[in-house]
């Protein structure tokens, strides 16, 4: 009898159990909301971006290989003028050039911070990189406009607007990203790697070059890909200095454009549902797909990484 009464008491669902259910569901729904947003972004932009091809019947070939961008009009040869190649090339050019310039600086800084002077690294360079990350992109754009563009104009001639100015601005913008992630991966290399190398009589530089950097390569690659992703997706800073001419870039100092710059400049001037507008959404879709690809690359490199936490 006694037992039965107790059993009943113990089996009654308490208020606490209801709290738990509530809290569990509440936090899960917050998470699912984020999940839904991500799916929403992908679906919305994919739908809009694909309508150029499936509703306006533009061929993929015209879009990806055409070099004349003036949606709604025809090219001299009679095709729709929706050639996105100039912007795609522009985006890739600034991204790759910025990465090429940034990488040695970033690795050098990171090596200095971890291998040569960790004290000064932590005291000065760490805050410096954090501050650099924090500076808003419009400020980079503003400085690009008032310092870099005139500099390029005076040195190389032309208007100063173009791929080169874009590269300069992006170089500074992605530098801190690459530095801080490279620092993390250098720090993850176990101490005894260095000790063993030095004990074998290698110089400090040989140790850094042959042992530390080699061991940290996957991490450094991830850092570079992250930097490139940031460069590829950066909109306003680039748009302010690149000149915004949807033309194939002939050289580094002629006005050009990127996917993001055409998007930001054009979206406000088109009517939803028109071909002009749809074509812009296709550019956004390319941007989205590239962002997903960068993510995939990070995963791919990360999986082969040596010292993952």
């Amino acid at each position, binding site marked *: 009898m*006694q*037992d039965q009464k*107790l*059993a009943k*008491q*113990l*089996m*009654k*669902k*308490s*208020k*606490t*159990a209801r709290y*738990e259910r509530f809290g569990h569901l509440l936090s899960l729904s917050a998470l699912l909301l984020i999940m839904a947003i991500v799916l929403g972004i992908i679906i919305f932009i994919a739908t809009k971006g694909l309508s150029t091809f499936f509703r306006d019947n533009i061929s993929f070939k015209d879009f990806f290989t055409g070099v004349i961008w003036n949606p709604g009009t025809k090219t001299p040869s009679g095709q729709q003028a929706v050639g996105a190649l100039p912007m795609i090339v522009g985006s890739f050019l600034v991204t790759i050039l910025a990465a090429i310039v940034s990488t040695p600086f970033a690795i050098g800084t990171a090596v200095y911070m971890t291998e040569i002077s960790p004290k000064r690294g932590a005291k000065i360079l760490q805050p410096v990189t954090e501050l650099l990350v924090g500076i808003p992109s419009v400020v980079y754009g503003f400085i690009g406009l008032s310092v870099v563009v005139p500099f390029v104009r005076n040195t190389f001639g032309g208007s100063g607007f173009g791929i080169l100015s874009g590269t300069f601005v992006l170089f500074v913008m992605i530098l801190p990203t690459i530095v801080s992630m490279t620092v993390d991966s250098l720090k993850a290399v176990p101490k005894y790697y260095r000790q063993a190398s030095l004990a074998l009589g290698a110089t400090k530089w040989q140790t850094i070059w042959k042992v530390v950097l080699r061991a940290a390569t996957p991490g450094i690659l991830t850092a570079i890909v992250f930097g490139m992703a940031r460069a590829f997706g950066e909109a306003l800073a680039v748009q302010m200095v690149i000149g915004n001419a949807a033309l194939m870039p002939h050289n580094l100092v002629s006005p050009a454009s990127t996917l993001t710059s055409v998007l930001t400049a054009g979206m406000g001037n088109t009517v939803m549902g028109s071909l002009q507008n749809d074509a812009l959404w296709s550019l956004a879709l390319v941007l989205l797909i590239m962002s997903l690809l960068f993510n995939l690359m990070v995963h791919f490199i990360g999986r082969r990484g040596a010292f993952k936490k």
Partner: protein
Amino acid sequence: MLNTKNKSDRFIYHFNPEETEITMQTKNLEVYYGKSLAMHNADIQFQKNTITALIGPSGSGKSTYLRSLNRMNDDIATVKGQILYQGVDINQPKIDVYEVRRRIGMVFQRPNPFAKSIYGNITFALERRGVHDKRVLDEVVEKTLKQAAVWDQVKDNLHKSAQSLSGGQAQRVCIARALAVEPDVLLLDEPASALDPVSTQQLEQTLRELKKDYTIIIVTHNMQQAARLSDYTVFFNLGEAIEYNKTRKIFTRPKIELTDDYVSGNFG
């Protein structure tokens, strides 16, 4: 009383339920972490108003066993078998685990006061259960702190942060906190291991006092402590209860050689 010798290499004392009041008991308990079996063969009964010590080498499954008793292993491990609390199997899905844990309280190895005042630490669980009457709460605070023998030391700064207390005081406040929700079993996992010898002595004295009202099960690495403090002792090894008997017998005339080796300090 009937004594059973399960296997020649294990000895588990059994009470006669007609004569003794059994508060808790485990039957065919098996605990798995993932797929690996961490604990089994521990059909042990705990007599009301006694102190039972769980001893054994590191990794022998003492904590695993203890944490199963109030379902604290729910999220970490798979627990099979029966855990009887006053005759009711509490290892069933239908059982409300929060009510179980209220009745079977737990004190941990490292003192873990919350970032609240001493008063707030003790009243917290009650308030969560809807008790807000200041008079009732005041009474509970005083009563439990007295039971935990720390009232005199803290009564003048009840609103000071509990995290600023010394280890020994903090551990007593944690005991008081556990007592506040009126459990009748108290599980303690090496509660004195972070304390100095004086605090340890005081804590033992407190537990002896508490025995009058509670059934106490305590894990300890300290052989003297088990001998001084407990009425019954379980010796664990490699995830099994090897010997369970009156503490006096375990420490003077153990029935199993392994137990003898362990308590006399020449283990392995």
